[in-house]
């Protein structure tokens, strides 16, 4: 499946728009990572555990986005946007949305 954050696809024509599709994932960090992050917070620097955690949940959100698009019969998703929000102290929500289309 073609996923892009452009609105126009070069050399390809959009046959049909199928509307908005979305995928989201809420994840919390486990306590071990939290303790390590607390230590890292003291001296600054990259929090690798968090980077990985957010990457994983972003992948999951994108999978859900693709599933939804496939269910609609689309073969491409264009104009994809990401959004992150921390909804609670220990959890973050990753949200992906885009337009499902059929291309030739």
């Amino acid at each position: 499946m073609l996923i892009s954050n452009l609105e126009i696809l070069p050399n390809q024509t959009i046959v049909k728009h199928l509307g908005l599709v979305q995928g989201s994932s809420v994840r919390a960090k486990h306590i071990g990572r939290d303790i390590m992050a607390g230590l890292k917070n003291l001296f600054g620097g990259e929090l690798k555990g968090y980077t990985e955690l957010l990457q994983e949940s972003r992948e999951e959100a994108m999978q859900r986005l693709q599933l939804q698009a496939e269910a609609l019969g689309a073969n491409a998703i264009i104009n994809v946007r990401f959004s992150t929000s921390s909804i609670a102290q220990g959890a973050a929500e990753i949200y992906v949305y885009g337009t499902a289309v059929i291309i030739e």
Partner: protein
Amino acid sequence: MIYQLIFVLILLILAYFIGTHLEKKHYKSIIEREKKLNALPAIAIKTPPTDGNFQQQLVLGSVTISVDYFKRFLASLHNFFGGRVTSYETLLDRARREALLRMKEAAMEKKATLILNVKYETASIYKGRNSTIGSVEVLAYGTAMIPYE
């Protein structure tokens, strides 16, 4: 009471030296990699080039960086007096540049020659005491244009 004060002071001094060292190291690596990846343009334009045959793919780069204890202390002072909070400025600058570099590295691996419609997404994911920002996550994403072979 006095022991507590000494403990905090030691922590502040430690955090200052280690934090400054880590930041300098990070900036050095950022500048080095930026020079190397300068050949791959990442732009915020939406319209794809009309000439050439491209395949496109979404590329992402993300990083989570936190400030050190000393800088957070400084920032809380700044909160009182107002003015520029340099410690957070460098934090965000580092995070954005690092995220862009990671995105470019991911695009490089796919042999892309151009990245279009680059967007940033910032979130503060860890809030410390008094809801001061402890660390930020920055995501950079765009569409990599990969020429057909």
